[in-house]
């Protein structure tokens, strides 16, 4: 059943985000800490468990797969509702700082990527 897949995704999302909000509250910040990460972890673990128990019947996975295919359209909607005007009308400082850090970031990515945990 498709709705069961969607239900599992919704459960993982809510539990993960709730935990992220709770963690944020615990360390005293007004933000979610790792909610999406915990939700992803939970989804993978539960999905594996369901798979082992052979509970994944019919089009269960399509309830999840639909949303991962909706990812790019949602990102298009997100970029269309960014405060893009603010990026350009606050003078030069935001443009210099915002672009400089991205350039430095691009330089750092291949350097830090060299760090690998070797399987022992």
């Amino acid at each position, binding site marked *: 059943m498709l709705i069961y897949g969607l239900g599992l995704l919704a459960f993982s999302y809510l539990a993960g985000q709730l935990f992220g909000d709770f963690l944020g509250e615990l360390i005293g910040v007004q933000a979610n800490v790792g909610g999406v990460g915990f*939700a992803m972890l939970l989804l993978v673990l539960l999905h594996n468990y369901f798979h082992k128990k052979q509970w994944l019947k019919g089009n269960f996975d399509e309830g999840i797969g639909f949303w991962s295919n*909706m990812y790019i359209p949602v*990102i*298009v909607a997100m970029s269309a509702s960014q405060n893009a005007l603010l990026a350009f009308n606050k003078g030069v400082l935001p443009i210099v700082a915002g672009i400089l850090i991205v350039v430095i970031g691009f330089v*750092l*990515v291949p350097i*830090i*990527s060299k760090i690998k945990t070797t399987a022992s």
Partner: protein
Amino acid sequence: MNIISFFEKNGMITSFLLIAIIMLVAEQISTRLLRKKIPGSAIAILLGLVLAYYGGILTGGEKGIADIAFFSGFKLVGGSMFRDFCIVSTALGVSFPVMLQAGKAGVISLIIGLIVSFVVGICVGLAFGYHDAESLATIGAGTLTFIVGPVTGSALGASSDVIALSVATGVVKAIAVTIFTPLIASKIKLDNPHSAMVFGGIMGTTSGVAAGLAATDQKLVPYGALTATFYTGLGCLLCPSVFYLALKALM
């Protein structure tokens, strides 16, 4: 009957139709004009940003094209709920061994990403003539993400001008990551899960990382999102406390 309020009432469905049209146009531009040199998804995201800018000019609002009634559904579909829900759904393609192998690099990239962003923001702030620790810390925090900036600024009591600057810096960063990532990905070897996790930790801005990786290779999205999801929260924790005190001690 007011036709605009009809579309507003059916905002979410209207936005599905509009996004489908944007994607179609982007795909045609990609195949016919650019011979697939730039992927359709990258062009669609870029078109989105152009629309956002146009909407901002037209309305003066904060939500880009979504401030126009006809496009109001974009607020919901392009909001953080749908975005995070879709990111979570991509997790099924994730490989645990790969993730564990990249774990150490991911954590290191997070720490370096937070510190470097803060320092760069402060240096730019100094260059533009800010000398008090509160303003500098707020601008530094805005260089992390557009959420950390205002959180830090209001915690430290920075002026509203400086807080607006910090938000703008975070928005420029998100847009710059979105536009430049697909163009530079092959040069920085951003083509595997390991470097995507490092990329998420270094850049941190969820909107930018999500859009930049979507335009590069959708398979990398969950890996980048995994580290980026900790960035804003940790930034909100560290900027008004440890980073601010360290800055104050140095001045």
